[in-house]
């Protein structure tokens, strides 16, 4: 149990992000990029970007989720260890946005994987993306607590 508590402490103090572009216009991607640069600098809050899904706690998804990418998105989601939180950034990731009705995408991230936080806007500003991450950390904490409670004490 104490290990799980340590996990929760670590995970909520320093969540690592994985950013995944599923077919958006790159607008949200450069805003996520801007959000990690000196002006906003979430690293002072412990938020760090990681290139590997196995190290990540929070998955940031941007873009419309094209059919070709959907299976990869599912696979990446499965590779992230529990507890995990998904943040859908931008209108495209929420509902398909301006590309709604097209033949080649699935209209939103939540059609493929469960989403916990939505950051609307086209494109959302970097500070709102950081706010979304803060909200995600809260959900991460809740999820970690749930795991802690459900695991029997030995």
């Amino acid at each position, binding site marked *: 149990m104490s290990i799980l508590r340590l996990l929760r402490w670590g995970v909520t103090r320093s969540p690592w992000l994985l950013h995944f572009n599923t077919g958006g216009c790159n607008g949200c991607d450069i805003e996520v990029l801007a959000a990690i640069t000196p002006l906003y600098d979430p690293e002072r809050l412990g938020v760090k970007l990681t290139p590997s899904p196995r190290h990540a706690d929070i998955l940031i998804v941007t873009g419309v989720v094209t059919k070709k990418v959907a299976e990869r998105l599912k696979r990446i989601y499965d590779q992230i260890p529990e507890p995990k939180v998904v943040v859908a950034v931008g209108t495209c990731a929420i509902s398909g946005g301006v590309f709604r009705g097209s033949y080649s995408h699935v209209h939103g991230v939540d059609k493929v994987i469960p989403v916990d936080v939505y950051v609307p*806007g086209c494109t959302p500003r970097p500070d709102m993306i950081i706010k979304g991450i803060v909200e995600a950390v809260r959900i991460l904490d809740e999820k970690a607590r749930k795991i802690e409670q459900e695991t029997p004490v030995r």
Partner: protein
Amino acid sequence: MSLPKLLGEVAKNLFKKPATLPFPKEEIKPAPGYRGLHRVDGDKCIGCSLCAIECPTGAITMKMRPGDKKKRYPVIDYGKCIFCYRCVEVCPVKAYIVSEEKPPVIRFDKKEAFIVEPIFKSTAEKPAKEEKQ
């Protein structure tokens, strides 16, 4: 080998004020004229549906006004809206109220917050809270 050119700049930056904005403590103000959340003034709206037709994403749906079977009013879905302000531009009676408010972050259990009804100043006309999608 010559010295890396950036070294001096990096050293200088050590003694400068931090470039980082004190973000979570202070809100960052967008530049004036930022296209933020927009609402419909329900009293001004004449229910012409022009905004719903012109919307590039189909984020605006026209709902029947309860009580008045002929009049409609627009409901904006911020989950689909791309904040292009085309609706604000085409509205013949300027019924849209624009703001510089940033679209808020929405949790998975509060998805109904995406759908925003018009503002009705005269409360008599205010439609009773009906089914949310």
